[in-house]
């Protein structure tokens, strides 16, 4: 589904955002992308959206090599990718329904498709009753649900989320994660860049960790930090938000060699 092959991206030739990164993500996977600020998570997402092109290396997405994709093909690539951001990016003067419908209108879907799909996806995110509200009248969590509905309404193959719970309180965040999990179960590949240690620990999904642009960990059922990863490896099973968030310092612990995950080419 997604494959990075020795991808390097620098900004202005000096700041390294991603260094020789190789990783493979299969269809239907649920992946957390973790790392401190400036570790390259957002660059990873932007490369997938083809908002950036790497300095070197190749990226495959949904069977296509996207680094050399001609400009005019980019919109068609993006139709296979839904994305969600920390700041929601809703249009403030459109209602919930219109915001979601906008994503379909823009790609030229006929009216009858819009009027059947949008209520369906609003139902999925639990906002059927608020379809005529404006984003400003909703809570942060609800706004993020609208954003997820908009990202998912087109049934994309991949859903990217850049800090989707960054602006939300822990309780609301759980709801958002559950929703993303549900979407993942429909077969959509979900990639979440996050700082939310509790969430990562609770979900026990594949974790890819970046540190200063280098892929330092790729773990099948990982947790956010090193210590809890060790605990997990020792048999401990952190449950939910009770797990203490652990520091995410520089990682170079030898016994944390990335685990072999079937079908996943690990970094380094």
């Amino acid at each position, binding site marked *: 589904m997604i494959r990075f092959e020795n991808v390097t991206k620098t900004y202005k030739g000096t700041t390294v955002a991603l260094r020789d990164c190789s990783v493979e993500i299969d269809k239907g996977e649920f992946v957390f992308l973790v790392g401190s600020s400036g570790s390259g998570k957002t660059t990873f997402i932007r490369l997938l*959206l083809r*908002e950036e092109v790497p300095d070197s290396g190749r990226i495959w997405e949904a069977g296509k090599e996207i680094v050399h994709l001609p400009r*005019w093909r980019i*919109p*068609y*690539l*993006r*139709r296979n990718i839904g*994305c969600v951001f920390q700041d929601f*990016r*809703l*249009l403030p*003067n459109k209602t919930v329904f219109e915001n979601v419908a*906008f*994503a379909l*209108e*823009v*790609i*030229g879907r006929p009216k009858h498709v819009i009027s059947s799909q949008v209520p369906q996806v609003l139902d999925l995110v639990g906002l059927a009753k608020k379809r005529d509200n404006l984003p400003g009248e909703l809570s942060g969590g609800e706004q993020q649900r609208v954003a997820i509905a*908009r990202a998912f309404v*087109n049934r994309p193959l991949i859903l990217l989320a850049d800090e989707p719970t960054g602006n939300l309180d822990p309780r609301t965040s759980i709801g958002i994660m559950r929703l993303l999990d549900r979407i993942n179960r429909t077969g959509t590949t979900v990639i979440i860049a996050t700082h939310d240690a509790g969430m990562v620990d609770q979900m026990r999904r594949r974790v890819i960790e970046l540190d200063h642009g280098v892929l330092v960990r790729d773990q099948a059922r990982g947790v956010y930090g090193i210590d809890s990863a060790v605990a997990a490896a020792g048999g401990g099973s952190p449950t939910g938000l009770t797990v203490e968030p652990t520091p995410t310092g520089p990682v170079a612990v030898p016994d944390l060699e990335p685990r072999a995950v079937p079908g996943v080419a690990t970094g380094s």
Partner: protein
Amino acid sequence: MPVSFGYVSREAATNLWRNRLMTVAGILTVAVSLALVGSALLLKQGAATATAQWQQGVNVIVWVAPGSASSQVSAIGQELGAVGYVERCTFRNQAYDFAESQRILPADLASEITQSDTPASYRCVLTNPSEATALDQQFSGKPGIVKVTYPSQQIRTMQSVIHVLQWAFLAVAVVLLLSASVLILNTIRMAIFARRREVSVMKLVGATNWFIRLPFMAEGLVQGLAGAALSVIVVLLLYWRLGLGTVQRASTSIFAQMHMGLAEVAGTCIFVAIVGVIVGVAGSALAVRRFLDV
């Protein structure tokens, strides 16, 4: 992906209405700028026709004394016809000249003239206007001839003044056109800047560039057209108010010397309208471009 006409017009209409103030600002910018451009062009054309008028008018008038015998009058005519550099001469009788004087002269003067006082005349066109002096010397003082009048140095001065004016008007028009384009571009860009969020969301969900661009261009088209329409009204008002449509009034005003047909005015208006449309559409396309580069 085909972009439906319905979508583009609907989107453009809602956006124009939603950003009413910007729309009005855009239209007024186009209107004011193009009205100035149109006026400058009109005056330039006026200057051109005024020059043509003068050049056509470079003819010598030989005034025949009132009450001369008709044989003497025809003798003068034959003599004029015999001069080599005279291309042709037209005889105007007293009735014609009287009517003309009534039309040209200020009312108080005109009322004191009677038809019998008015001299008849030969209007002569010369092959070379510079021979006018020679003709004057040859015929002045002959029996039956009151006076020979012809365009003198003043006219040539006038011509060069008009020539300079023409270029000045053209330069003003070009400068105005440039500044109008920049103003319009800036106005449209501000309107688009206010909606960059929307554009970025459209890009994100996979809208093609044309899909994003076309409604903006349609808006530019509407603004350009509306602005051009207003400026055409201003140009037409100017045309009528300055009396540029009427032929040569007796006035020392330079505008009196300018006159032009409706065809020329229509040409100016069409030019202004086309410029308005181009500036609106191309301006929008240009202004939206930077927001499409994601």
